[in-house]
């Protein structure tokens, strides 16, 4: 398995961090005017019946129990975190007797459809193939399929390099259920991925399907177990062509305390995924070879808030793909310095805007060499266009 020593060291450090951070934080509350009430019922203003049920579930109040201002404020935040509403307001109404209250929740719906798009262009000076490169991606998703809180998204990506005429195009259909069978700890992901690669030495069509079930544990960690099936048809221009198929057992571990994946201001994120190839084979029409292998992907990133507008994210990543039988291992490390003049701004189309500059270096075991990269650009969260990333990059190997 191609997971390097430094990966294991960082994994150990972060697992240790997990244990420390997983403790329940102590909270200070100003309770000078707070009062306890007896909860009678929760009523929803405007929300549909199914959404109201989910509001009640997140509020976590039981009839007849004592609730405080703090409980009510916490409930409000949890309802906001459902992501279904633009705005959430809680108010109290008199109950059947003094001290008893009815909690009224007023919400305004948020569009369940979201988009993510990116456009990056740059110059690559990679071995003998210098030239302009560009990639574009677009995702459209629905975060509340059938009003159940499940997520369905379709993503596409295209990449091209002018000097060699190389191109890749891919599409990914992803279904996620954050609370499998209504359970708070269990989740499910199903993905179908199709990819077409056209390089100057080969072209390939790849199809991968995977199903994963995950369970969260502690406050911020989760593990996943899944099954993947892949099929590739590879045409090499200077060598034998063939087909490749695999059945894989996929194991994953993750840890996430970042407060925002796109605009993180603090926290760490670790992902480790290992694919154990079972019953894999490569065939060139004359012979078939069966093999098994271990493939691993790992990435770790942690963000520090330098001041209210300046954020620093360190990252380490390792990609291990099996391309044309030869293992292709990419270790990278770098940092991203982000300057965010617009954050959670109300009343404008662009609610978040962060400029970033991210230098990094990577080593490639398959092709050899060390690649240095610089990415600069801007990330936006726009009410009209969703999440947008526009960037320029340069790379040299």
């Amino acid at each position, binding site marked *: 398995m191609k997971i390097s020593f430094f990966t294991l060291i960082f994994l150990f450090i972060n697992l240790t961090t997990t244990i420390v951070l997983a403790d329940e934080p102590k909270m200070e509350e100003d309770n000078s005017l707070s009062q306890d009430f007896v909860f009678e019922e929760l009523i929803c203003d405007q929300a549909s019946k199914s959404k109201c049920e989910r509001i009640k579930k997140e509020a976590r109040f039981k009839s007849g129990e004592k609730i405080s201002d703090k409980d009510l404020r916490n409930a409000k935040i949890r309802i906001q975190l459902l992501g279904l509403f633009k705005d959430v307001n809680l108010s109290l*109404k*008199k109950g059947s007797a003094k001290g008893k209250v009815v909690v009224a929740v007023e919400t305004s719906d948020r569009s369940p459809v979201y988009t993510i798009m990116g456009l990056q262009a740059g110059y690559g000076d990679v071995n003998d193939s210098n030239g302009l490169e560009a990639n574009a991606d677009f995702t459209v998703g629905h975060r509340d399929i059938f009003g159940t809180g499940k997520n369905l998204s379709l993503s596409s990506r295209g990449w091209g390099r002018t000097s060699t005429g190389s191109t890749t195009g891919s599409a*990914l259909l992803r279904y996620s259920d954050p609370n499998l069978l209504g359970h708070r700890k269990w989740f499910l992901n199903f993905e179908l991925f199709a990819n077409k690669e056209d390089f100057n030495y080969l072209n390939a069509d790849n199809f991968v399907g995977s199903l994963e079930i995950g369970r*969260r544990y502690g406050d911020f960690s989760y593990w996943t177990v899944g099954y993947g099936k892949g099929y590739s048809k590879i045409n090499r221009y200077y060598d034998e062509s063939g087909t490749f198929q695999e059945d894989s057992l996929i194991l994953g571990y993750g840890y996430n305390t970042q407060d925002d994946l796109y605009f993180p201001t603090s926290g760490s994120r670790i992902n480790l995924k290992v694919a154990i190839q079972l019953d894999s084979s490569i065939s060139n029409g004359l012979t078939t070879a069966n093999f098994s292998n271990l493939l691993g992907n790992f990435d770790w990133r942690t963000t520090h808030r330098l001041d209210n507008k300046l954020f620093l994210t360190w990252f380490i990543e390792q990609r291990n793909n099996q391309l044309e039988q030869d293992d292709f291992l990419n270790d990278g490390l770098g940092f991203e310095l982000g300057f965010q003049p617009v954050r959670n701004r109300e009343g404008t189309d662009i609610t*978040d805007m962060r400029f970033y500059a991210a230098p990094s270096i990577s080593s490639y075991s398959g092709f050899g060499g060390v690649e240095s990269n610089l990415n600069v650009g801007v990330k936006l969260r726009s009410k009209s266009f969703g999440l947008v990333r526009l960037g320029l990059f340069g790379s040299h190997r």
Partner: protein
Amino acid sequence: MIDFKNLLTFGFIFFISQTVLANMELSFQPINGNIAIKSNGFNDFNKQFIKDINSGLSVKIIQIIRFNDRNKTVNLHQNVFSIRYDLWDETFLFKEAQNTIQKIKNLEQLIALLKNKTTINLLFSKKEASLDRDFFFETIYVINPITKEKSGIIKKWMAEKFVGPSSQEVGSETNSFIAGMVNSLVQTELDKNIYGADKQIVFKSKKINYRTLEAL
């Protein structure tokens, strides 16, 4: 550069002119070679803010009055108070810092009290104010501030929605909508221990030029 030690002289002021600005009223008056400025509060309180203080839940508010010019932002005044509408007494309870709780009969009286809290009396030295620059005042209401400790609990709730990264690079950001929900938790620029807030309302004056004041 303006010397704020000279500038921030509080005094008793008579008003001869009043300018109604964006949503913050300021008055100016020349006194013995200096210019007195007074903020009279706001024309309009945010409807959402009114809704919050009528909700029956206790609302903690940090109120900051700031002076901004090109070179610096100075917090002139800061109040921390709590308000709660008592459903059964049908009165507002108001508590400022360590003071005792005041009972206020109705919303109009409460608004008048809040406006009064935004009153600032500044005395500008004309000598100091001779630069050809703009400045403005703003009052910020940070409603129900969220401490860093509380942000840890919020992150835990966020983690209950996280479904891990995508196995493929493309689409790996699909989880970001979960985190995007924290939009409503406004980042404040106050205290490092304050991570965010339920809401933040900012009232700003129009930009004022020092020369305009000098001409008074």
